[in-house]
């Protein structure tokens, strides 16, 4: 199945893309998507411990299942305010 990945800030810069489509086997979790993404963009790998995740605009754990067509966003540490 395919999921739509959104990236922000430094992750976006490292991937040189704010969104991309990632193919993962079924069943898959957000962690599966992240690992597939890191194969495509190895520079993201060091962020694994500091990344947060949102599925379809809801904060989610990396262990949360994803479905075909889901939007999966990966968020580096934040610095708003």
């Amino acid at each position: 199945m395919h999921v739509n990945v959104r990236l922000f800030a430094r992750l976006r810069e490292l991937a040189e893309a704010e969104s991309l489509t990632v193919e993962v086997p079924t069943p898959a979790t957000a962690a599966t998507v992240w690992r597939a993404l890191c194969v495509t963009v190895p520079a993201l790998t060091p962020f694994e411990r500091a990344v947060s995740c949102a599925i379809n605009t809801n904060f989610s754990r990396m262990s949360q299942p994803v479905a075909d067509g889901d939007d999966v966003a990966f968020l580096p540490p934040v610095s708003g305010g």
Partner: protein
Amino acid sequence: MLAVTRAPLSVDALAAEVEASVRTRGEGCGALASFLGVVRATHQGRAVRYLEYEAFDALALKVFAQIQAEAADRWPGAALGIAHRVGRLSIGEASVVIVAATAHRAESFQVCRYAIERIKQIAPVWKHEFFEDGEAWVEGAVVNPDDEAARARALEIACM
């Protein structure tokens, strides 16, 4: 009362909106505390040229609504407005404006302080600093909106 915007921020505009929302509720609104985060000319000794803020807009609005709900839970009757700016900001411009309205002043300061602490913990917004001699993404908190310890810390800071 919640916004992610590329336009310059106005305390007056947000305050009017927040005040109107709470005017006829309970004891009404006698106190408005606000907070503005402003771009400084220097950061850790480096001369700043400008900043860029980036947000996950749709999620940021949900987070702001969550912070509103948390505040209403802790301070019944309080009203809270939050607007975060994105895009390029010059020195002296505001990146975030928060307005908290309550009947009495002590609570208005608490709600406002709580909101800025929570924004820094969980709002999906990123700051990119451009210096005279380089640039840097600022990376603060790893977002975990279910982290009750973080929420408790924000409450403690707000109420100390």
